[in-house]
């Protein structure tokens, strides 16, 4: 199989993930998009490893080994990420990324669409972290 197929596929996957990370509002979907990007990288690693090992006399298949590492780390990362999202949802009643703006300069209200009860705990949390 020519190298172009997996490379193009992984580029498409990566762009899809990137779009998800930048544009989705739900934190869980953002995490899923991050997984897409990671898997695009994994695909690249495996494809290029195979392509390089064809030319080499002997090889350690380091690309494939690295892929295993990436999968393991991605599993751990998604576990922590989902736990954070769960905790945020329990505290705030929402996992909408647009509304999680505690780090904004000057602790301004989140915007015109924010309702009054949501600002209360946010402001308190900001004070606690300050």
């Amino acid at each position, binding site marked *: 199989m020519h190298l172009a197929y997996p490379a193009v596929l992984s580029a498409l996957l990566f762009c899809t993930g990137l779009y998800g990370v930048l544009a989705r509002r739900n934190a869980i979907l953002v995490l899923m998009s991050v997984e897409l990007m990671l898997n695009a990288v994994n695909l690249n690693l495996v494809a290029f490893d195979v392509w390089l090992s064809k030319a080499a006399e002997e090889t350690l298949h380091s690309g494939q080994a690295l892929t295993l590492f990436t999968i393991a780390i991605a599993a751990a990362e998604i576990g922590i990420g989902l736990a954070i999202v769960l905790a945020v949802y329990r505290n705030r009643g929402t996992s909408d990324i647009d509304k999680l703006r505690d780090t904004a*300069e000057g602790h301004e209200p989140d915007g015109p669409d924010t309702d009054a009860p949501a600002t209360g705990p946010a402001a308190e949390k900001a004070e606690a972290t300050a």
Partner: protein
Amino acid sequence: MTTTTLAVLVPLLPFLGAAAGLLLGRTAPGFVRPLAVLPTLASLVLAALVAARQGGGRAVDAATELTPTGSVPIELALHIDGFAALVAVLVGVVATCVQIYSTGYLRDDPRYPSYAALVSLFTSAMLLVVYSGDLMVLLVGWEIMGICSYFLVGHYWETPEARAASLKAFLVTKLGDVPFLIGLFALATDAGSFRITKVLGAVASGALDHPTLIALLLLAGVAGKSAQFPLHTWLPDAMAGPTPVSALIHAATMVAAGVYFIARLLPLFEASQAAMAVLAVMAAVTMVGSALAALAQDDIKRVLAYSTIGQLGYMTGALAAGDRGAAVFHLLTHGAFKALLFLAAGVIIHAAGTNSLAAMSRMRNLRDRVPDAYWTMTVALLALAAIPPFSGFFSKESVLGAAEHAATGHTEHAPGAAGWTVLVAGLLTAVLTAAYAMRLWLLAFRGRGAEAPDHGRQPVAMNAALWVLAIPSLALGGLAFRLLPDWFDGGDLAPTLTTSVLGTGVALVGGIVTYAAWRHTTALAARVPLGAVAAHPEGDAALVEAEAIASHKPAYGDVAYAPDPSDPGRLLLGPLHRHAAVGFHLDAVYTALFVRPVRAGASLVRFLDREVVDTYVRGAGTLPRWLGAAVRRAQTGNVQTYVSALLAGTVVLAVAVVLVATGA
């Protein structure tokens, strides 16, 4: 043990005692008193052994260089001649008496451990000064004494007087120490060594390029340490410290260090006629001025403080007349009787509950309350007034004799004018000394009025120290004037007929005139009631004294002065009394000359710093602050915006790298 080992142990033992006292003071209070008294006593015994072995013969010299220090080497050196051996014994005697006395005087004082340790450190520093054969090592002891006097004078730091006095003592002596240090450097540069023996060798061979400059610079440090005019003002104020500290500072250490230093390096001063003339004028002004001021003081300890300044004036006078034997002789006898005077004054202040002579003159039978202090103080006052056969007579006559020698041109290096100055001032001071000694005695012990309060017997430790010191005050002069020339330079110290008759005569005149004035004024005492006594007369002596000092100003309007018409000093001094009571306004002059300009300078600097420099700093901060505010607006809190910016940046960088790599 060799003499050198013994001599090294003499300053070392009190130092170790001080270190142990400071470390163990809180954890083992039972050891504090032995740790205070025993090392000092041991070093007294060792100093006596060293003196016995040295025996006035050849000077013991020993030196070791710890490490190379650059151009002029600094060595740990000993130089023990007859002067050093005898002065060390005096320091040991007085320090031991003061330590024993303090165990009674500060019986209930919560800060006694640190006090005793500092007194030990002070003693050790003085012994270092006495034995040191290297000027830099001497300076170490000199400065340790300065900082110890700061702590000890400020022992009652709860009172503002003590805080101000300790700062003043420190700053005024440091004012002299800066030229002193420069003088030492100049001397070492000229002589090529800090060793006293080599310096004296260089002086003898005429190798010094600037003897006058060096002598005058060193003289400034000596004037500060030995409380000579015009740097004497710290000493009367230092009376705010506990009485044993006054005894230690005024008798054997600190003030004696300056005189002793000149005595060691006298050939250096003799190399410059100008320095000897300055020394003579300084001594004369100090003697007469301090004696007049002593006659007007109301605080019993301030009378003694001014008397110390005057007696140190005698010593510097003897040095100006080129006779260091007479100077150190007077240093020894004065050390004994002045320590006794101060310690007895402490007992009297405790018994009377006041430090004011005006209040004491309105107490009947004070002398029966403190018979030990009465008798020993009488002995010491007779010695101070130089009445034969007390010790002060012989030493003062040797000073006057030396001045007469110089005046008649029999002394090689001293100018005749210096001799005349010292002789005339010395005789004038002898009158005044007898007068203020008589006044002190009459006011303190011959009071009339209400019965003196009875607080029971004084502690044995305090009375014992008094009697120990009474022996040398009584007999040291008469026994020693024949023996001492063997220890010193060999000059005759026996009193000559002319000066003896003159000196004793004027002293008697001074005493009798004061007695007559007292008979005249004492009737007035009953009409003007005066007298404030301490609030806690049952407390230990240190507490009574601290309260007496603190209450003097509220009660009488000034620390040094009481509006008492029955004071014979007021009648004798006439219109001069007002000025003498405040030390001839020297403090006011210093305030106008130094304190006010410094304060004005400080407020100017404060203005420049707050209003000018800070304005520039704030102005420089404004632009970055605005920029920061602008940049902070990008901080929206939306994570996706940040990632988008990151992506955009990455793309830009990637494109740039590709463009550079392809060479476009």
